[in-house]
């Protein structure tokens, strides 16, 4: 096969058995890879009502046909499972170097089932696959784990692992690869921890066959073009924290648990400040020409110490503006702690911001937490992060997620998320399409199942009013479908979502790699099929319109800043047209005709 490696690896952790089977070519053609192929596998095989943290859940590592093919930013993989945070399908995406090792070792998919009696890790050295005892690294942080496993296996091994947070079943524990890249969201790390699987280490020396290398050479031309465009230059120079300035300028930087949309100390935690104070150099994931990664180090002699990557924009929001921390070094330290202990910075921040609001309301006391938790107190937040990762005291409750904490302390409305997952850093009151996107995302408040910055804020491909419901359902559906296809391909969203002609380009790349001619419309249709299948997965678990919700703060409390002042998200109005255009009934359930026309059943 061109693009796909043609082999599925199955690992039964209960009996410790590893088997290989050929990849079904029809499955590959219809669902591509990434979240597409994985959700199909889960719908066919998963015991739907299983406990996400029980042995019946399945954990899928999966790349895509475009991974390691010279196409733009082709170094990504995904982790797909039933989420312990939301109870829905979830697919968490990561870059770094591990995805390339995974694919060149010769596999498209690794499916983990069951539960190991003692901690193990999977060691894959091309054809050789074995489960090994993880006694030496259980309890260790992600960087130490990476080092230990490399010493035990091969210096070229790439390691994807959980830290203490995953072992302690924190509902938003991440899986960290290469020491700092995260398949962060939805608690995929807790599923790994519950299975007794500490890490996956892979060394790959194989190749990825492609049908039409001439066309793929165009990738280098497009990369040059992007590098010379304004956004490409800004991206390489400032990384994703450049969005701090964009969001603040547009008054959509979520601040103080989404109470506000402008963070006064934004200038102290933005891309320029990182360059001045912590940046060692910028850094790319495997096969990426954009190099948005930040290799950073806290200055010697400062209050906080350490080195690592980031923070990314989402962390500047979640552990910065949203909890009112405007100290870059404290924020960077929190980011390192999350990477080392294996926590999602977004839900960690979302939970802490909810807890800070509860504390301010007097619903939770310093006695219950162990210390006061006031807005902007970075040291209290740091202490809480360690408690969450280790499951100590109030950290055990906070590790259940923001929704749990908000409900437990009697103010469910202070949780800023959807379906139990905290939002990413885009305030929907100032870009209402993003609100619709969050509400209808199959995995809750997630920014990687589509993002509306380009259409709503940057006016690409054409300007639209960010505050109006008009045209939003159609736009959100298009973004969600395109994103589903891109993520199924095993590449990074950034270049394809930011370029106006991104969908055309990925269709051309997909055709060149696989030799299967696909137009823009073809790939959108595959994206639509994937998105509907994810919807169907959730429907079988009882999710419908009632769960496509947003907190009252977004739908009833008026915005405080900028042109959006006074605005709220007209969710129900957008949902009606969204369901109609999706071909779902008024309760948000895909009709038989819609599923049939997409070739789902």
């Amino acid at each position, binding site marked *: 096969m061109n693009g796909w490696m043609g082999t599925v690896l199955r690992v039964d952790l209960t009996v410790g058995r590893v088997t290989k089977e050929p990849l079904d070519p029809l499955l590959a053609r219809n669902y591509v890879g990434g979240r597409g192929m994985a959700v199909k596998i889960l719908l066919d095989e998963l015991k739907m009502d299983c406990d996400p943290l029980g042995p019946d859940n399945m954990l899928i590592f999966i790349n895509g046909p475009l991974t*390691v*093919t*010279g196409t733009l930013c082709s170094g990504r993989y995904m982790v797909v499972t039933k989420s312990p945070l939301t109870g829905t399908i979830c697919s968490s995406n990561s870059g770094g*170097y591990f995805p*390339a090792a995974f694919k*060149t070792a010769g596999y498209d998919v690794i499916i983990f089932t069951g539960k190991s009696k003692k901690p193990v890790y999977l060691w894959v050295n091309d054809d050789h696959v074995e489960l090994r005892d993880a006694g030496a690294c259980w309890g260790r942080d992600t960087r130490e784990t990476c080092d230990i496993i490399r010493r035990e296996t091969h210096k070229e091994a790439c390691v994807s692992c959980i830290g203490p947070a995953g072992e302690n079943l924190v509902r938003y524990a991440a899986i960290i690869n290469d020491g700092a890249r995260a398949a962060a969201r939805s608690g995929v790390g807790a599923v790994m921890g519950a299975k007794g699987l500490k890490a996956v280490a892979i060394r*790959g*020396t*194989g*190749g*990825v*066959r*492609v*049908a039409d*290398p001439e066309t793929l*050479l165009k990738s*280098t031309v497009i*990369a*040059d073009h992007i*590098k010379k465009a304004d956004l490409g230059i800004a991206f390489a120079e400032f990384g994703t924290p450049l969005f701090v300035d964009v969001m603040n300028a547009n008054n959509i930087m979520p601040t103080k648990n989404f109470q506000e949309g402008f963070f006064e100390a934004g200038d102290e935690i933005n891309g320029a400040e990182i360059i001045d104070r912590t940046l*060692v*150099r*910028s*850094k*790319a*994931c*495997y*096969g*990426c*020409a954009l*190099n948005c990664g930040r*290799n950073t180090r806290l200055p010697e002699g400062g209050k906080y110490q350490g*080195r690592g990557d980031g923070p990314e924009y989402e962390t500047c929001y979640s552990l910065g503006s949203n909890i009112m921390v405007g100290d870059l070094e404290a924020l960077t330290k929190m980011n390192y702690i999350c990477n080392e202990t294996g926590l999602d910075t977004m839900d960690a921040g979302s939970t802490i911001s909810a807890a800070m609001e509860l504390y301010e309301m007097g619903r939770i006391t310093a006695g219950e937490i162990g210390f006061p938790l006031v807005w902007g107190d970075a040291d209290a937040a740091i202490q809480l992060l360690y408690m969450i990762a280790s499951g100590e005291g109030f950290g055990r409750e906070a590790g259940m997620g923001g929704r749990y904490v908000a409900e437990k302390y009697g103010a469910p409305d202070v949780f800023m998320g959807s379906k139990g997952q905290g939002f990413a850093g885009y305030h929907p009151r100032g870009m209402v399409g993003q609100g619709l996107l969050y509400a209808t995302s199959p995995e809750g408040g997630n920014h990687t199942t589509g993002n509306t910055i380009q259409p709503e804020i940057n006016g690409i491909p054409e300007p639209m009013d960010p505050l109006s419901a008009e045209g939003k359902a159609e736009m959100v559906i298009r973004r969600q479908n395109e994103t589903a296809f891109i993520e199924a391909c095993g590449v990074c969203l950034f270049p394809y979502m930011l370029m106006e002609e991104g969908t055309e380009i990925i269709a051309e790349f997909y055709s060149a790699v696989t030799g299967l001619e696909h137009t823009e419309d073809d790939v959108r249709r595959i994206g639509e099929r994937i998105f509907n299948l994810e919807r169907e997965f959730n429907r079988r678990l009882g999710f419908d319109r009632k769960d496509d919700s947003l907190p009252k703060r977004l739908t009833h409390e008026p915005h405080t800043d900028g042109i959006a002042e006074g605005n709220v998200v007209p969710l129900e109005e957008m949902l009606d047209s969204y369901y109609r255009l999706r071909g779902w009934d008024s309760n948000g359930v895909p009709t038989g005709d819609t599923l049939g026309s997409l070739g789902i059943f």
Partner: protein
Amino acid sequence: MGKRIAFNEALCTNCHLCSMFCSLVFTENRIYQFRPSIARIRVTENAEDTLYVAHVCLQCEVPACAEACPADAITRNPVTGHVEIDQEACLGCGSCTEACEFDGVFMVNDKAVKCEVCDEPLCVRACAAGALQLVDWDAASVLEQGELYREVPL
């Protein structure tokens, strides 16, 4: 002396696009593959993650690899000036990779391979960061690049 691939560490982003595209050149039997493990240019970083280094043959004036080869399979091409390995003559003993203190010779399928400088190198074209360039050979820049290779071995 001919041309060589010059590497500017300050611009490298550790993306490995050079080795990905290099490997495409060495495809066999018209089966096109991205297979970085056979590339003639390989990227690594130091333990502190502060230096990113693409190892590629310096086309040395007095190549240690050639001197070490028991089969005399490594010679300078009199026309281009590039140091080349005769794949037929190569015994696959690995003496050259041991001898090269710059980690510029690699073993692939039990044969020694190295950069023999393409006319239009894909590694240079693929390097979006502009860290690679096709340049005329000169002793001073080779010395500098060689020191970096000794500091950060593969």
